[in-house]
């Protein structure tokens, strides 16, 4: 446990110092963290054996919520924007989840995809509200009334994002160890037994689905504030596929997995675009094959080996 904490601390210090040494990495890592949150949401559902092929819609809802706050409602405070974007994403997750979590396997995956494409279409077509395919610009927010330059704000956003990784990561860790979190993985292994224990699988899944939507919303808000612009493409199905890929690549056995996967993919993307722009998808494909064949627990498996943790059969493998 101590080695795990030490290794996690070292990883966070590297994350915190990286932009100081390589300033160009700040934007890449901010987006990696943003997508890491959304992938963590996807990973939660994977623990219950459910694959969502539409979770980018909550990432987009979080992003659009952040844009609306500033542009349509005149709310510019950073903290208010972040909280509102999270709550709005969670609300949509709760509403859509009411019927989506009744389904399993391919039906769950395809219905999520279908709903996400409806959201994508609405974002693309409702020009008056969403700006259509042009999207919406996101102004630099104020922080407790202080106006910052874009560069200064990006620095603050980056370090706040790291703090959020630690804080929300800890809360999700506690949730997964709790009876409610165990009920979530129990849905995967034996839903019948769970019902015969007096536990509603539907309620357990709806809770997880709402939390996962909130996490994706946090990521979307971070991305919107970092990029300064939101587009319907945030909700496109390929983005949802990317989130599943990130979660699988990183591993779902620990909170760090999706963030490891996201940082890995964003760094590969950044490097590949510079040196082999046309081969970026092939490089990602090869990386995924390597992980599947040699790291069945994802990149998190490497983290476990380094920290001396013993993987148990009871934890999800991916």
């Amino acid at each position, binding site marked *: 446990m101590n080695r795990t904490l030490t290794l996690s601390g070292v990883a966070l210090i590297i994350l915190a110092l990286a932009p100081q040494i390589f300033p160009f990495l700040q934007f890449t890592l901010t987006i990696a963290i943003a997508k890491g949150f959304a992938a963590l949401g996807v990973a939660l559902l994977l623990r219950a054996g459910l694959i969502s092929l539409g979770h980018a819609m909550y990432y987009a809802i979080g992003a659009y919520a952040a844009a609306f706050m500033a542009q349509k409602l005149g709310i510019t405070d950073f903290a208010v924007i972040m909280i509102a974007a999270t709550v709005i994403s969670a609300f949509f997750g709760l509403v859509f989840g009411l019927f989506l979590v009744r389904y399993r396997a391919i039906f769950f995956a395809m219905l999520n995809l279908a709903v996400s494409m409806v959201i994508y279409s609405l974002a693309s077509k409702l020009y008056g509200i969403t700006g259509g395919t042009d999207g919406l610009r996101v102004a630099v927010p104020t922080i407790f009334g202080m106006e910052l330059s874009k560069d200064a704000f990006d620095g603050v956003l980056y370090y706040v994002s790291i703090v959020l990784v630690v804080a929300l990561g800890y809360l999700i860790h506690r949730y997964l160890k*709790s*009876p*409610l979190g165990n009920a979530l993985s129990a849905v995967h292994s*034996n839903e019948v037994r769970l019902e015969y*224990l007096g536990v*509603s699988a539907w309620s357990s899944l709806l809770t997880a689905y709402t939390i996962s939507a909130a996490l994706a919303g946090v990521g979307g808000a971070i991305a919107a504030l970092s990029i300064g612009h939101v587009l319907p493409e945030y909700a496109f199905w390929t983005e949802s596929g990317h989130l599943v890929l990130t979660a699988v690549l990183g591993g779902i056995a620990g909170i760090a997995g999706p963030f490891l996967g996201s940082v890995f993919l964003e760094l590969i993307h950044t490097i590949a675009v510079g040196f082999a722009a046309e081969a970026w998808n092939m490089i990602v494909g090869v990386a995924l094959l390597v992980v599947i064949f040699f790291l069945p627990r994802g990149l998190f498996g490497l983290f476990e080996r380094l920290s001396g943790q013993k993987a148990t*059969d009871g934890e999800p493998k991916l």
Partner: protein
Amino acid sequence: MSEVLLKAENLEVAFGGVKAADGVNLTIDKGEFVAIIGPNGSGKTTFLNLCTGYIRPVSGHVWLGDQEITRMAPRQIARRGIARAFQIPQLFTDHNVIENVMLAIASREGIWQAFTALDRPKYRAEAMELLELLNLGDYAETMAGTLPEGLRKLADVTVAMALRPQLLLLDEPTSGVSALERFPLMDTLMKAMKARGVTALFVEHDMEIVENYADRVVVWNAGTVMAEGTPAEVMKDPRVLENVVGIV
């Protein structure tokens, strides 16, 4: 005077043209160990499914004590005090044995605990006590999916008993268990159920088990109760000898 714990009245259910329950009336008193015997397909397991809400009757009623449970979902019935162990043990195979039991304890205490650990001293102590009672103490940390069949059966019952049920339904507790293991397994189950004051209804094919462990036997045939009484009484009934014992 004995207290009625479970009462089924005029239960009817059919699958296609086959009547699995055809006007079934049955009561189980508190503290009884009742066995259901009957040929394959006679509706024994269907009766357990009706009592636990897994299927709903076309007509008729089921009461647990003075509360009607006829159309409730399995989870609602479980919360009211009926637990079930299955013919094919139903365990959380990605969890170890003690986690299975602790999850059952947490379900009983209230699953809506999002930030307190499942593995806590109070739950662990209670789970360990129950596992010791069912001779599974040495397997507490073993993954549930890797247990041999006899131990899986016991673990399934342990999970059900962790709910502190008023009534425990056991579907063929000795099926899939070797001949040598049957009696020790039943001895362990009976000891645990008596220690916890659990009333039990079990479906069984093995007449030796029924004769040795049941207070009362209910004989099922074609969706109806053909006969009932003590094991000795039932085994003398010519209809039972002709229709059931000759078949089972």
